[in-house]
Each structure stands twice: as C-alpha cells, then as structure tokens.
C-alpha cells in the first residue's frame, strides 16, 4: 500500500511532465496536421538552457536561490520559445502545402540536426547538476524504514502543471488568439479570408508548445538534475504516445494521456520490470494506434479525396 502510494506520486510527477510536452505535439498536430518530430529536442534544449543558466548564474556569484530560479526560468522560456519559432519558420513553413511526409521528414532532419548540434557544443557526456531545492514532506513512516514522501519539487511540478494547463485551456477557449487557432484548425483558407493571420497563428502555436516543453525541461532538470543530448528522443516518444493515447488534437486528452503514461511507466517499473518500462510504453503506443487510433478524446478522421 505504501509502495503503491509512492509509485503513484512518482508516476503523477512524471505524467505531468509528459503531459506538458504532449500539449506541444497535440496543438501542432491539431493546427497543421503534422507530427513535429523535433519537439522532443525542444524539450532537451530547454533542459540544457536551464543547466547552462544555472551554471552561469553560479559563476557570476549569484547566491539567492529564488533569483536564480527566476532568471533560469525566464532565460529558458525565451531561448526555447525562440527555437520553436525559428524551427517553424525555417523547416516547416516552406512546406505548408507539401505532402504530409515531406514535413515529417523535414522534422526528422531537424531533430537529428538539433541533437548533434547540442552534442557538438556541449559534449556527449551526461551533465549532472546539484539539486537546487531539496527536502519534502513525509506522508507515511513505516517501522521497517520505508517512507512515503513527496518532495517540494514534486509538489511544484504538479501545481505548476495544473496552472499551465488551466492557462492554456483558457487561452484557447476565451481569447482572440485561441479563436484564431481553432479557426485555423478547421479551415485555414476560410480563416485567412476572414482576416486571421494564419502564419502568425501557427507560429504562436509553435511558440506556446515550445514554451511548455521548455518549462517541462526546466522542471525535469530541477527534479532529476541530469541532462544529456539524447534525452529528448525518449521523452518525446513518450509524450507523443501520451498525445495519441489521449486523442491527438485534444488538449485535455494530452494531459490525461500524459498522466496515464507516467503512471503506467512508474507502476511497470515498480511492479513488473524496470528494464522493460520503455518497451511497455512503446507497446501501448502500438496497441492504441491499432485498436483505437483516435485515442480517448479524439475525433475520427475522414479520408477525403
């Protein structure tokens, strides 16, 4: 029971992160119908920029943790958001009307490019950062020494994720920008005729996705303290699985999918086999695509001539 609770907490934390990344996939897919293969790399860049900001803050002699956190977060969001914008502008916008696979191949190329770019500049070795925030709340203490605890970082991750989710949902439901996004999703030509700046709307969608992935990267760096140039690949695949599981194109679906994937991974690692936890996630991806390609909240797609 205690073990179960601990796995539940860990799984929810992990799931929150996957959910945040999954939103980027789902929003981009919703609006231009492509799988942004380079999204995992955006998350990786977010994590790297966080580490670099912290190191640089440390070198300049800053010692106030709160200021450091704020500086790192802002730098990460700005830089990673700009990466999202640039990638869309350079690699995807020219392919707006090209066949679907052309854009997918372009995004695979972008992903390979970014991975090797970071590897060349920052080295292939894993970077370990000292935890910035430690401590937590012990929920349960057993006689044999097994404790169930929630660290402050885990609480922050969950609270921040919920806040961001609410924010994004409100933006899409209530604001002019959200209305433009929904319009582009339905019919880009018609939206353009009615005065929506389609290019700008799509660019902003990419930036929102990138910023959420950057925050996910920031939180993961705070939580685990380990980054490497390859981390985006697996996380991206899992987040994509989450987006598909929830129904690609659906915002609440992405979040729910993320939580489910996080829980499955955590429980699989805890009860079945830690080595095969990634295999389990990929297996779920295939099962979902085969049995229920529209996911939990997705709309069925109609093949048009």
């Amino acid at each position, binding site marked *: 029971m205690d073990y179960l609770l601990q796995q539940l907490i860990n799984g929810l934390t992990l799931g929150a992160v996957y959910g945040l990344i999954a939103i980027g996939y789902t929003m981009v897919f919703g609006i231009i119908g*492509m*799988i942004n293969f380079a999204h995992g790399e955006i998350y990786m*860049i977010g994590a*790297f*920029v966080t*580490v*670099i900001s912290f*190191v*640089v803050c*440390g*070198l300049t002699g800053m010692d106030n943790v709160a200021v450091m956190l704020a500086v790192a977060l802002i*730098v990460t969001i700005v*830089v990673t958001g*700009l990466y999202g914008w*640039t990638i869309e502008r350079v*690699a995807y916008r020219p*392919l707006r009307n*090209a066949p*679907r*696979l*052309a*854009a*997918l*191949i*372009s995004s*695979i*190329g972008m992903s*390979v*490019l*970014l*991975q*090797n*770019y*970071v590897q*060349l*500049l*920052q*080295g292939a*070795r894993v*970077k*370990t*950062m*000292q935890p910035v925030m430690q401590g937590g709340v012990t929920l349960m203490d057993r006689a044999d020494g097994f404790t169930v605890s929630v660290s402050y970082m885990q609480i922050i991750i969950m609270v921040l994720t919920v806040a961001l989710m609410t924010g994004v949902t409100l933006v899409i439901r209530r604001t002019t920008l959200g209305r433009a996004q929904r319009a582009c999703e339905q019919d880009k030509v018609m939206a353009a005729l009615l005065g929506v700046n389609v290019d700008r709307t799509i660019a902003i969608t990419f930036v929102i996705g990138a910023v959420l992935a950057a925050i996910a990267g920031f939180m993961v760096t705070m939580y685990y303290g380990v980054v490497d140039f390859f981390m985006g*690949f697996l996380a991206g*695949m899992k987040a*994509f699985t989450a987006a*598909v599981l929830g129904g690609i194109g659906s915002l609440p679906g992405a979040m729910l999918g993320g939580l489910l994937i996080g829980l499955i991974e955590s429980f699989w690692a805890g009860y079945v086999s830690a*080595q*095969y936890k*990634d*295999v389990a996630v*990929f*297996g779920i*991806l*295939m099962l979902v*695509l*085969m049995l229920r*390609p529209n996911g939990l909240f997705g709309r069925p*797609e109609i093949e048009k*001539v």
Partner: protein
Amino acid sequence: MIARLKDALLAALIAGVLTLPLMGARTIESAHGLTAEWHLDRVLAVVVTVFLGRLAVLALLRRARGLGRMFSQISAWVARSAKVFSVQRRKKRRLLKTRFALPAILILATLLLPLMPFSSRYVLDVGIMVLTYIMLAWGLNITVGYAGLLDLGYVAFYAIGAYSYALLAQYADMGFWAALPLCGLIAAAVGVVLGFPVLRLRGDYFAIVTLGFGEITRLILINWTTLTGGPNGLSGVPRPRLFGMEFARSGEEGQALFHDVFGLAFDPSQRVVFLYYIILGMALLVGWFSWRLRRLPLGRAWEALREDEVACAALGVNRWWVKLTAYALAASVAGLGGAFFAARQGFISPESFTFMESATILAIIILGGMGSLMGVVLATLFIIGLPELFRDLEQFRMLAFGLGMVLVMIWRPGGLMSAREPTVRL
C-alpha cells in the same frame, strides 16, 4: 536599404539569442560540480555570418524577384544536371545509351576495384561499407521509395539479421552461406508479423510505430542478456568461407585454408577482398531484383499506392497485401545485410543498431530521390564515402545529415534526383 538592414539585424539578433547559451557557454564537469567555459567568439562569428548572409540573400532576392524564383532556378539547374544521369530519361533516344552506360561503368569499376594498384585494405574497407549501405538503402527504397511508406525502424530488421546469424552460428553451428537465406527469411517473417497489424495505419502514424519497433528491438537486445549477451553483445561470429576454405593464417586440423589450397602466401587482405566481392554480389542482386520488381504488376501497384491510396482502393487493389509485400521484402534485404554485417565484424552489440542508423539510410534515400536506384548509389558515395575519407569531419556528419534532410525537403521534396515519374504511361 534601411528595411533590409533592419531585417538582417533582426536575423542576427535571433541567431545571437539562439546560440548564446548553447554555444557561448560550454558546461564542463569539474571537481566542484559543473562549471562553464566561455566561447563568446563563436557566438559573435555566428551573428556576423547571419547578418552578412541575410544581407546577401536579401540583395540577391531583389534581383531574382522572390525567394521562390531563386530556388526554382537553382533547383531547375540541379535537375537539369541530374537528368543527364537519370535512369528515367527514356524519351530521348540520344540518351538511351547513357541510361545503361553509367550503371555499367560503375559496376565494372566496382568489380575491378580490388585489382587496382591504389586499392589498399583501407580503400576496400570503405568500399565494403559503401556497398553495405547501398544494399540496405536499395532495400529500404522498396518501402519508402516505391510504396511510399515511411519506415523509421528499418534498423530493427538489420539487427534481427545480424543477431540471427550470430545465434544460428553459435547454437546450430551453421556457416555463413547456410545461415544467410535463413536470416533473410527470419527478418521477412518478423516484418510480416509486425507489419500485419500496423500497415492499416495512416502514413505518419505508421512512421512513428515503426520507430517504436526499432527502439523495442534495441531495448530487447540490451536487456535479454541470456540470449543476446546484453550490452556486451556477441563476439566470435564465424567468418564466411569460400567453398569450405577458411581465410586464416592457420586453422584446425583438416581445415582447408584459402592460401594453402591456392599455394599463395597468407595475406589478411585476401579475406577483405573476399568480403568485398560477397557484398558486391549481394548488393547487385538486390539492385537488379528491385529494378525488375518495379516493372511487375506488384511494383506498379506499389507506385500507384504511393501516388493515391484512395484511387487504388477504388480500383480494387488490395492495399494491405501490397504494402505487406513491400515491407517484408525490405525487411528481408535488411536481414541479409545484417547477416553480412555480423560476419564481417565478427562482433555485434546493440550499439550498432540505433535510430541514427535508420536515419542515415533514410537520408541516403531522400537525398538520392525516393525511388531512384542510381540516386541511391550517388547519395551513398556522398554520405558514407566522403566522411569516411575525411575522418576529421566525422563529428559533423550527423549534423550535416539533419541539415541535408531539411534542405532537400524544402528545396526539392522529391529528392535531388527525383524518379517520381510513373513507369508506365497511357
């Protein structure tokens, strides 16, 4: 002018923000945790380059009146120069000869390569590697080029072929030639089993699922320690023999040795030459096979399916069956390639079968123009051969691949030597 300057300044600013953290500060492990090393000169170089480059592009643009026109001019030029080599050009009688001339010259050149005075062991090693990739790319070309299915997990079948041979040799004591067809069959069988459920999926979902296959295969190879040796891999994979003759300095009692039988002095490069001819034969066979396949009804069905699935379904083409054959055939080619790889290396580990391998082969096909056999050869020489000869650039190779994939897609979504013309015309 002012507007152009503004534009270039903005581009330079963006480049600066993008590169400042990642390029400007390199994180290094030290005794007291992470610290950073400054490289602000690089950032400055990038910013200046982007600024000047953007100005130059804008100035050029004004002359060419629009980015599109400049691109179309350059790409038309590339197309024209590529067309000379194109195997597809059949309307002009004049060029009919070149259609067979270039492949014939290339085949002759590869056949004679080991006899050339300059062919050192190193040259042959590079040759073997290039030929392996050509063969693999021709195999993947069946799925990606002909049938239009983006397979991102091709490396899984390569790995299955390699491990099949290593395990067959270890447990069933099979030689290379006996195991080779079996490896192809095993890979094809796995392809059928995996393809069976997922081939119904839409293009990009299919791509992601195959990527999942590739990763699952690698993870299983790493974790199934008792069978695959885990991360340490399998060593002592037997080398191929020529009619039972071994290529070694000395063998067990009664074992025929190549240099003994032919009365030659022992030379390790004999084995390399032998391996070279094996892979040359395999590659040519695969190339010829896929070239002929394309003219069969099946090959035409692949192409038709690639161009328009809905129309195919309406005309009564069994989509699922047509895709499955393409997928399984490509898988079997990868299986054969994997068996050769294992036999050549004598040692295999999961590290050789990462996604980057799939991406490399995919990059070859994309650069070569999806569907074009000659394009694949030229692209392999370009992608595998060049970096092999310039080892210093090794680290920039994958970077260039990624960039190349993006640029080719933007520029000529059909590939540099596009062969997207239908084989038959009404």
